[in-house]
């Protein structure tokens, strides 16, 4: 296909040129998605671990709910967040609609269930192995939670990367709450949507390739950290 070949060349050229507009869009994409993932991890890791080791009525139902929320359609999340942040909505007084803050909130809602659900599974599996020993040592509650999280830390890196993948790739949520405003809330995915709607298909494809390079970069960085981390891990 003609588009694909020229798209690859365009992508390489775009990256090599350090085109200012493109860099601005890339920077915003990273800022929004990384922020959402960091906050989602801060929220989701302890919640997921607590769900894994807690025992209470309705626990199974809650697990099913969280697993279901992993599949939240981004466009639906965008719509719901828009309605709340709208001037006519409950949180209109915050005045953050059509800003990166709104986009971060929407993506936070998308990625947190992923972090909770996957963390829950990893910690639950670890708990099955460690529970007796930890109880024998007298480790309970918060202390047990932290210990288990540290034990499965490498699996949790994968969880966070999965969350990042979801955030950086979605368009439905950020386009509604961000508005795709030039220089303000335009990110990679919304820019691709824009170019597609203008019929600039090879440019859109090139941007798509740039986006994938971006995701590749983040994953490679994580793998490098993981490679060097074990040396520090036996403190």
């Amino acid at each position, binding site marked *: 296909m003609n588009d694909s070949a020229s798209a690859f060349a365009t992508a390489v050229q775009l990256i090599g040129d350090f085109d200012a507009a493109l860099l601005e869009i890339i920077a915003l994409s990273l800022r929004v998605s990384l922020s959402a993932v960091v906050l989602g991890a*801060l*929220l989701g890791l302890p919640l997921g671990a607590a769900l894994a080791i807690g025992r209470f009525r309705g626990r199974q139902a809650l697990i099913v709910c969280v697993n279901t929320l992993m599949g939240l359609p981004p466009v639906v999340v965008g719509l719901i967040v828009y309605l709340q942040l709208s*001037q006519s909505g409950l949180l209109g007084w915050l005045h953050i609609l*059509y800003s*990166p*803050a709104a986009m971060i909130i929407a993506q936070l809602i998308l990625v947190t269930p992923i972090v909770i659900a996957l963390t829950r599974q990893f910690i639950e599996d670890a708990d099955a192995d460690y529970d007796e020993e930890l109880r024998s040592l007298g480790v309970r509650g918060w202390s047990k939670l932290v210990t288990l999280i540290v034990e499965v830390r490498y699996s949790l890196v994968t969880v966070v990367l999965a969350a990042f993948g979801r955030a950086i790739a979605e368009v439905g949520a950020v386009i509604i709450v961000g*508005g795709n405003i030039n220089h303000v809330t335009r990110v990679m995915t919304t820019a691709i949507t824009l170019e*597609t709607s*203008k019929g600039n298909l090879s440019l859109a494809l090139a941007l798509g390739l740039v986006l994938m390079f971006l995701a590749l970069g983040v994953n490679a960085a994580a793998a490098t950290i993981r490679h060097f981390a074990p040396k520090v891990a036996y403190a």
Partner: protein
Amino acid sequence: MLSRLLNFICVGCCLLGSTIPAAADQPFILLQSTTSTRNSGLYDYLLPMYQKFSGVVVRAVAVGTGQALANARNGDADVLLVHARNAEEQFVADGYGVRRFDLMYNDFVIVGSNTDPAQIRGLNRAAEALQRIARANALFVSRGDDSGTHQKERALWQDAKVDAVAASGTWYLETGSGMGATLNIAAGRSAYALTDRATWISFQNKQSFEILVAGDPKLFNQYGVILVDPERHPHVKAALGQAFIDWLLSSAGQNAIAAFKVGGEQLFYPNATR
């Protein structure tokens, strides 16, 4: 503990999100408009001009006409600029807008593959062209999204006394999408479509398509601009919004609109009456 965590999250989000280098300190207004207007490139040309003149940034959110109207109804805009006269007048009548002004017009055209199976090329009556398309069962792609373009299209089918919607899914395809997406589909299926000229001229994926029917006065496409009513939504930046509208309607704005060309062609014709 939980509420403190939530607090931290909210503050964190706002802090992280609000540190925008350039745009944070400048005054700005929110403009709700349509994708077709934005895709023509008009805003990329006009808004920086206005910023230089007034120091005010106009942040344009481009969505479907229906969504722009809904957003403005919710108060998520200072100024509304769309091309759906009936809906605009209803907007003002319902108390959401202060007053509607004619701003500019362009025209709609019917585009299709140069093979033209329904043989509509050169007709100067849109209604007749649509009748030929229906009779030939030739593929026609509609936006189907209640946009200004879609409303115009519906009016034309009515004029042609053809019930196209009844054939939806056969030769009449409703995409429920914006103009660009719809044109992509039309080009892909070699189908006819109704589009505004501005979008068509700047559309990059024309393939073998051409303008087949144009010039019918019924294809006239009028744009209107409205200030969102501050009495309905007190936070609306009424002064800044009105200043923008005033500029658009002034000779400076009108001349700027007329001077906007793509590929040597003028896309919009200013027709504000003051």
